[in-house]
Structures are given as structure tokens and as C-alpha cells.
């Protein structure tokens, strides 16, 4: 993939495995993608595709044992995060790279007022007095649209959408360069989701933050991302600019995903689902891991692992159909 010095984040050949009693879970396999400052990438895939493990890998939050980064590098701002000590990493987390989680109820501390939880991050990473940190917390609440009077309220006094706003305030309090949002709106109703996405879009543009948006919803990708990486069985099977990917999808899995979604603007009789099931990460199929579900599979698909092949400017596909010597 492109070696670009302007990239804020460059992930190369990342593999994360979990070694458990029953065997090895290959959660992330030879994963590659990169991100420029201010850019948003959508990491799209179904349950078990390895999206969240990738995010936790970037944050060095993989529990070890049983988890282990077995290969690859994560270059952030010129440093390989995998080579940092825990103390160095702690300085990165929350100030340089921060994360918004899916469930806004369990990611907040139930026994502290929300204001204090935002101030805590600021106190940890910046040389400020408690009063200054609290003041910053109140500014953040204002930014995410929570009234000042509610600063001393506890998480349970807020609705799901408001709690996610608090999560966003915590994540952005130290003005990170990279924000990882792990399904931030999945637990919310659509009208509330629209509010939260609008807010994230605005704040991201204001601070030129890069973002990794983890989602299973291609609609959200269309709304908020600049580029897309489609994940299947722990690796990126297709990546491109948002427009290129939506107008010109190549990988059979990507095409299958698009065909599976009921479209509110079209009137289709029958959906065209992808046959079969997600593979077991303890026992991934040989060769291309999608081949048992693929309508275009050829005999060599079960033997050869496809490489990233450029099919268009910045559009890479991992499929033998597009490799040289293929069809």
C-alpha cells in the first residue's frame, strides 16, 4: 500500500491473535490501512470481522494474555506504537488518540458527576489546576450541547443520546489528533443518531481531527467518512475513497453487503443475501477466507491468499479476480 509520509496513521500487516485453551483465534490478519490528518475512514464489517480488535490494538488495550500482536506495525505520527512502553502509551491514550465506545451507559463511571469525568482526562494529560480542568469540562459540555446546569448530574440522569454526548466530550477534551469511534450510535434511535452524527461531524471539522469510524452501517459511512475499508475475517478486503467504493465496488463481499441492505429509496422484490455464514476465526478457510461464500470462487481461491491489488487510483482490492494473471 502507499507509503506516504503525510499519513498520521499507517497500519501495516497487523495481525492480532488470541491464544486460548481451545486454539488460536485469528481476530486480525494482515491488516493494512492509512489515514491522513483530518481524514475520516470508515471501518465496515459484520460481527466478528475484527473491527473492535483493530481499534483496541491501536490503543494498546488488547488484554495479554491471551491476546498478542503477532505481526505488523502501527505507525502513528512517526512512531511505532507497538514499541512504546506502557508509560509512554499512557501519555498517548486520551490526549493524542482517544476513543468513543458503543455503549454510553457502561463506558461512564456511575458514581461521578459527568463534569468531573471530563475534568479527569484534562488533569491527567495537561498541567492544569483543578479549577482550570473543571472550566475546560464545562466548555466541553457547552460544545456538545449539554446545559451548564446539568454539569453536576450523574450518568443515570441522562438519556442515551446525552450520555453519548458526554462520551464525546471526554474523548475530545484534550483535543486529540485521532479519534476512534466504535459504533458510537448503534445503541441510539435514528433521530438521536442524526443529532450525534451531526455533532461529531462539526467538532471533527473544527479541530481537524482524524477519525476511525467503526460501523456496520454503510449509511453512516456515506454520511460521515472520506474513505472506507471493508473488513472480512480480520483483514481489509477492499479500500477506496468513499465515492469510488460506493459507485464502483469490486470485491464480491462488498457487493454482497450492498445487495443485502433493504433500500428505502428503491422498490426491490427480493433481497440478494450473501450465502452461508461468517467463518469461525479459530478455523479460517484456507486461501481467500471469503471463498466458501463467494459466487465467483475459482479452485485457486482456496489455495492462494490474495494480495492487495490496485484497481483504480487509491482503490485496492484483495481478490484473485483482480490480481495479474487473473481474469
Amino acid at each position, binding site marked *: 500500500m502507499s507509503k506516504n509520509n503525510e499519513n498520521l496513521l499507517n497500519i501495516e500487516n497487523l495481525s492480532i491473535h488470541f491464544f486460548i485453551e481451545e486454539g488460536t483465534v485469528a481476530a486480525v490478519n494482515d491488516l493494512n490501512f492509512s489515514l491522513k490528518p483530518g481524514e475520516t475512514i470508515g471501518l465496515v464489517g459484520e*460481527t466478528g470481522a475484527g473491527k473492535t480488535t483493530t481499534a483496541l490494538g491501536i490503543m494498546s488495550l488488547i488484554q495479554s494474555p491471551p491476546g498478542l500482536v503477532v505481526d505488523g506495525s502501527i505507525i502513528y505520527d512517526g512512531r511505532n506504537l507497538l514499541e512504546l512502553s506502557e508509560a509512554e502509551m499512557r501519555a498517548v491514550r486520551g490526549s493524542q488518540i482517544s476513543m468513543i465506545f458503543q455503549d454510553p451507559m457502561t463506558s461512564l463511571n456511575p458514581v461521578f458527576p459527568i463534569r468531573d469525568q471530563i475534568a479527569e482526562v484534562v488533569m491527567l494529560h495537561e498541567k492544569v489546576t483543578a479549577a482550570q480542568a473543571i472550566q475546560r469540562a464545562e466548555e466541553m459540555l457547552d460544545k456538545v450541547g449539554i446545559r451548564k446546569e446539568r454539569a453536576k448530574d450523574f450518568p443515570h440522569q441522562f438519556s442515551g443520546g446525552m450520555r453519548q454526548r458526554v462520551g464525546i466530550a471526554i474523548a475530545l477534551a484534550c483535543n486529540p489528533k485521532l479519534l476512534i469511534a466504535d459504533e458510537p450510535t448503534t445503541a441510539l434511535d435514528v433521530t438521536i443518531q*442524526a*443529532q450525534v452524527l*451531526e455533532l461529531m461531524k462539526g467538532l471533527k471539522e473544527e479541530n481537524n481531527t482524524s477519525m476511525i469510524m467503526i460501523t456496520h452501517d454503510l449509511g453512516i459511512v456515506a454520511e460521515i467518512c472520506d474513505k472506507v475499508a471493508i473488513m472480512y475475517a480480520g483483514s481489509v478486503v477492499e479500500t477506496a475513497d468513499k465515492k469510488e467504493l460506493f459507485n464502483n465496488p469490486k470485491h464480491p463481499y462488498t457487493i454482497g453487503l450492498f*445487495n443485502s*441492505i*433493504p433500500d*428505502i429509496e428503491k422498490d426491490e422484490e427480493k433481497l440478494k*443475501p450473501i450465502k452461508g*455464514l461468517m467463518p469461525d476465526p479459530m478455523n479460517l478457510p484456507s486461501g481467500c477466507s471469503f471463498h466458501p461464500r463467494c459466487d465467483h470462487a475459482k479452485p485457486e481461491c482456496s489455495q492462494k491468499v490474495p494480495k492487495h491489488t490496485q484497481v483504480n487510483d487509491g482503490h485496492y482490492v484483495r481478490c484473485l479476480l483482480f490480481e495479474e494473471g487473473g481474469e
Partner: protein
Amino acid sequence: MSVLLEVKNLKKYFKTPRGPLHAVDDINFKIKKGETLGLVGESGCGKSTTGRVVLRLIEATGGQVIFNGENILDYKKKQMAKFRENSQIVFQDPFASLNPRMSVSEIIAEPLIINKKAKGAAELGKKVADLMDTVGLASRLENVYPHELDGGRRQRIGIARVLALNPEFIVHDEPVSALDVSIQAQILNLLDELQRDKGLTYLFISHDLGVIKHVSNHIAVMYLGKIVEMSDYKSIFANPKHPYTKALLSAIPVPRVDDVKRERIILEGDVPSPINPPPGCRFYGRCFQRQDACKNTDPLLNEISSGHFVACHRCPRDE
């Protein structure tokens, strides 16, 4: 086609320490035989309660549920047993709704045994095998337990169990919400085939407008216990009238990138509490078209054009 189910002035209030919670508040709809009514709305709007009250899994506070011409809310125990054979429900969480200590074939056989629908083990075995075949479960899965299966297959078990007694009417309560999109599409196609083959009537509950549009003949949009708009599936999307429906439609992220910008309506605030709701339109506090009349008078569900019902003071009848 004749009407199979008609709901009249149906109400369900729950007692709470802070006053009655109006979960379902005076709703009316009809479903014709062989058709699907999609019930859509956000969390807490009363859609699941509606599904349960219609089947008398919880008792209504008031109103009528007329099934095949009879009000089932008046039914005594014996008549209810008959009705239960005829009407079934598929739940959202296919794991929580299956007994973890029963194998696939035992789960599917249970309704047949309870209702004495099979004579002898051989006939029972054959019926179970047929049902598994109908929903696309391989016969080798007969003796496995739910925890060994993925969500899509578990939901197929739930569907096979429901079909065992040959019902006429099925309530689907978010049957695909817990599934990944590629699996969701498989299940939606299955439900569609079953409906066509067996002439089933569905009440399909979902928060996902894409899914609702795909499965429904008619759609009812609920907000805080009320139906705010109801029409055939095309008009709701092509010509939404109620401000809430408009906002809901505009809030869905559409997986398409074209340069045409869709009009975006972002609603203020959250859904208010359904406990002791104030008089007037339930949507008043979040509405971008509100006027004074909306605050005090509750709008009725009016037919503004043929087959298109809207409960809004701002939506006059077509001349």
C-alpha cells in the same frame, strides 16, 4: 381480501408510582388477510406493547381486538387456547427466546406435543423434519442445542416453532434486529416466501424503516403510544405528511453517495416520558411546525387522502 385483524381504540396503560404510563393510547388499525402491517417507531413508542396486547400476552386497558370477526379480549380460557394456536409471535432475541436445555428438534416439537397435533413418535418426527426443511435448517442440526448455533439459525428455529401449529397470523417483534445484514437479508427472504406460500398475515414491528418498507403492504408510524401516520408502504416514503415521519425519514443514513443533498431535519431533544403525558399533540415539544392549537388539542387520525391517515393539525384533508 377480507380483514383478518382489526384493532379498535386499543389502550394499554401501566401503573407506575408516578402515574399511569400510556404505552399504547387509543390506536386503530386493520390488517387484511395475507398482508403485512409494518409498525415502526423509536424505543418506547409502544410498538412492542401493541404486538403483545394484540395477542393478549398482556391484557389491554381498553378497546377491542377483533380477529376473524370476534373480539378476542372477551374470550374465555378455552376460546383463548384456540386463538393461541392461530396466532403466534417471533421475538427479537433468538437466544433468549429459546430454552437452552432443549435441542432444536425438541423446541420445534413442543407446540405439537402440547396441542396434541401428532399421533406417535414417527408422525411427530416427520412433522419436525418438514418444519426444519421449510425454514432451511439442515436435518443434521436436529440434536444440537441453541448455544451451538449462530443468530440466523436460532431465528430460523424460532420461526419453525411458530409455524408448527399452522397459524394464520404472526407478530414479528424486531425479528432481524439482532442479526448482521447479510443474515438479516436471508431471514427477510424466508419470511417473505412463507407468507406467499401459506397466505400468512403479519404484524411486523421494527425500528428499521428500510426493513419495514421491504416487508410491509401498509405502514403505521408510532410516536409515544399513538399512531401518527398510516398508509400503504409507498405513500409513507414518497409523500410523508406528519412532521415526525418526515424527520424520521430524513434521519436515516442512506448508503449512497451522490451530489444531491437530501433535506435533513434534525429534531431537538429526546422523546418525552409517556407517564402522564400532557394534553395536546405528543410531538409538540420536538415539532418544527408546531402552532398554538397543537399544545392543547390532541390531533385525531384523519384520512387526508384515500388510505392515507395522519394525526396532525398542520395536515389538512386533500380537497
